């Protein structure tokens, strides 16, 4: 019986596939959603008169459950984190009536900037414990003192002061409502870049929450550079200090000399 036999052979893979599909169905992850972000550019140039700007990051949510999406139960938090460097926090106190730096604590690997945009107010997205676990938000990022054996109370004061100073200078900022869904799957995040944004490699990260539960994360890199002329001057100043100093002197002498030529005819 060649014909049924052939039919069987043809059917077998289909049946097998169906069986496999059936067996796998309960095992499919409950949250198949993925998140992607894209930057229109991987480098941003700032000039010396840079007064701050908004950086727009677009992102997409794939395999989103339309029901959840319609009810607005997806939340996104986008973070733009600057390069990490050591920071010295100093405290002034009154000495003979003058305000003088009297105490300092050094912190290692402090993100120089930290801008956040969220879809909603923090407490509506997930619990404070989850934020702490994920070290998400300016109040939760790890700030590690160099001298960990120090007095815990003093360290706590300095850690709080470090966050407070960073916020006051605009380097640590947040924008509630800065992430907006343009459609069920497309979102736009606007994070502020402050005027004193540090130069270096910044990392943009997007966190997806569904019903208060963290699901996925996606990240992209962004280089913030000084624009052409300023970048060159900056590089030379940092790497060829002697030549830079020499150039500064030559310019000064030429300016002084030119000034005499232009203005004085003695």
């Amino acid at each position, binding site marked *: 019986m060649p014909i049924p036999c052939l039919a069987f052979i043809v059917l077998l893979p289909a049946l097998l596939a169906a069986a496999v599909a059936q067996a796998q169905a309960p095992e499919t992850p409950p949250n198949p959603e993925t998140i992607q972000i894209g930057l229109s550019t991987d480098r941003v140039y700032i000039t010396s008169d840079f007064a701050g700007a908004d950086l727009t990051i677009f992102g997409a949510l794939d395999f989103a459950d339309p029901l959840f999406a319609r009810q607005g139960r997806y939340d996104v938090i986008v973070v733009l984190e600057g390069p990490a460097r050591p920071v010295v926090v100093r405290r002034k106190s009154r000495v003979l009536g003058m305000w003088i730096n009297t105490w300092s604590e050094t912190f290692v690997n402090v993100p120089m900037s930290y801008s956040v945009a969220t879809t909603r107010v923090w407490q509506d997205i997930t619990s404070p414990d989850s934020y702490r676990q994920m070290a998400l938000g300016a109040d939760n990022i790890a700030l590690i003192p160099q001298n960990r054996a120090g007095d815990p109370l003093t360290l706590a004061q300095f850690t709080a002061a470090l966050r407070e100073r960073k916020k006051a200078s605009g380097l640590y900022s947040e924008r509630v409502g800065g992430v907006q869904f343009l459609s069920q799957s497309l979102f736009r995040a606007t994070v502020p870049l402050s005027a004193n944004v540090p130069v270096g490699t910044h990392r943009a990260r997007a966190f997806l929450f569904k019903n208060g539960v963290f699901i996925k994360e996606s990240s992209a890199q962004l280089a913030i550079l000084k624009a052409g002329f300023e970048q060159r001057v900056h590089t030379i100043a940092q790497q060829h200090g002697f030549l830079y100093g020499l150039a*500064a002197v030559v310019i000064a002498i030429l300016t002084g000399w030119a000034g005499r030529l232009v203005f004085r005819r003695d």
Partner: protein
Amino acid sequence: MSVNIAVILAMGAAVGFLSGLFGVGGGFLITPLLIFYNIPPAIAVATGANQVVASSTSGALAHFKKGTIDFKLGTVLLTGGVFGSSLGVWVFSLLRSAGQLDLFVSLLYVALLGTVGGMMLVESVRAMRRAASGEAPSLRRPGQHNWVHRLPLKMRFRTSKLFVSVIPVLGLGAVIGFLASIMGVGGGFIMVPALIYLLKVPTNVVIGTSLYQIVFTGAYTTIVHATTNQTVDIVLAFLLMVGGVAGAQYGAKAGQRLRGEQLRALLALLVLAVAARLGFDLFVPPASVYSLSSLSGI
């Protein structure tokens, strides 16, 4: 650091005008003004030293043409200046990483400007009184000697018609170099009286010689600051120079219409005002007692 170009140019022009008016370098005004404009003191000092090179070059060239520079005296002063400036830049880095630079710069300014301004004010008020009462000013007799002239290691300076020990000359140069690197000043306001009253250098070569040594001490200080601390801001300095060189011309013209002692009294008041403002800022409670800096102190 984002600054307004127009503000910096205007600042340079204002200081240039005053320096032309009073015949001073203006470094002692540039640095405090930059500090008042929220430029970190470390940058303000090193950039001020650079600006001083430009303003003193103009003046030194004029004196070179007139032949009123004692090159030998200036070079000995400069030798001392190089030592003083190197020491100053080292102390500067040390203070900066200890977080005490701002305080030290302010205190030095308050002390020096307060003293110099106070002395000038007293002197010019006396001169005005004398002029009003018609009294002739008491002139110093040449050949009057003091302890400085009894020191060993004497050297002859022909242009200045001087035969003095090199010790006070080197010492004076070193003090000026130290102040140049810590305060970003040329130091003319100390150098000129010291040369006249301490070393008895003839007044006609004092200014030229002082300017000649300031050009080189300022240049050396700029290079050392750029190499060690990376605190020279070439763009900022250039804007100050351009404003300064232009402003100085108008200041010099305006100065010709005012009398010497009145000018000195005005300058003294200005110097005292800057000292008072810097001193006052030390006592004002800061907006936050905490401040952040990098490891190197900026």
